[in-house]
């Protein structure tokens, strides 16, 4: 039969063994937020850059990954630039076609309008001269 004293010892031992385990479990569930790691896109401080450089230099796999990441980023950037250049080039090409077509129409319409105005002016002059000739002929053939 366990005595009261042995039960107290058992409770103390259990507390000593289980409590740290429970504490570790709590840590695993809710880890303490690391400090000093910047968000993506923010500028690194000189110390952080140095630490990163040391880390990259010490790890071959990380070095390869960083190199591949930078290369992919540069390729993506160049591709975006090329796409922008290409869309500008095609927009310019369309503009050239439209300008040429517009000039062609303007020349044709301008020429036709010029001819129309010239024809109207000539017809006016012809009508005026005909009237003068008619009047002169009638005056000449009238009674002296």
């Amino acid at each position, binding site marked *: 039969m366990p005595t009261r004293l042995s039960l107290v010892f058992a409770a103390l031992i259990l507390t000593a063994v289980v409590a740290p385990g429970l504490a570790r479990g709590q840590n695993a569930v809710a880890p303490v937020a690391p400090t000093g790691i910047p968000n993506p896109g923010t500028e690194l401080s000189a110390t952080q850059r140095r630490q990163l450089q040391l880390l990259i230099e010490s790890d071959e796999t990380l070095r390869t990954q960083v190199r591949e990441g930078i290369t992919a980023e540069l390729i993506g950037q160049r591709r975006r630039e090329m796409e922008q250049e290409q869309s500008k080039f095609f927009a*310019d090409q369309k503009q*050239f076609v439209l300008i*040429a077509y517009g000039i*062609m129409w303007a020349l044709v319409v301008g*020429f036709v309008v010029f*001819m129309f105005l010239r024809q109207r002016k*000539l017809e006016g002059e012809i009508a005026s001269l005909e009237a003068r000739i008619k009047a002169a002929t009638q005056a000449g053939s009238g009674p002296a």
Partner: protein
Amino acid sequence: MAETKPDKIANPIPFIIAAVIAGAGFIVLPLMAFRAPLPDGMFFSQKIFYYHVPSAWTMFLAIITCGVCSGIYLAKRDDRWDQAAQASAAIAVLFGAIVMTTGPIWAKAHWSKYWIWEARLVSSLLLWMIAIAYVLVRRYGGPGMERLAAGIGIFGAVDVPLVYWSTQLWRTQHPQNTVVPTLDNRMRPALYTSALLFIILFTLIYSVRKRLGRSRARLEALELAAEDLEA
């Protein structure tokens, strides 16, 4: 005294129909050109081809017509041929202006330069300047300028083959004459529609311009008659 009947177009209906066809065609043409495929190594500016080339053909046609009519005028001394030559020369100037503006715009888009001093471009420019010279002589030449202008018209017509074969005679950057015969079948409808529309336009402008020439001749005859009466 000169003929004083009113100078109207005898039957305006074919004229109006042709004008409507030409107008509608020039609205449809960009759609046809847009749907036609691009040749290898060419960019969107290649679409200028569909009105640059037919306008050059029309310029050639106008200058040849001017030269032939000038030759007949010199042989027969019939004013109708002179008026026909005069109308053709004016049209050659118009279509030459289209060639000389659409060409450099295409050159700028494709070669990054508006102008290159090479045989096809320079000979085309000279041909256009001959047409302009004809018109200027007719406008400011004074008495006897009809025969001088007729000589210029013949000279221009003789120059046309030289311009056409300039890409074979000299080393040029301009596309060769083989482009059209070897054209993709899907590009032909747009090109030939455009050529047909330019010929309709040529005919329409020619008839209107010839009428203008007749009116001018009539006015000159009336002025002489008025001077005789006043004297």
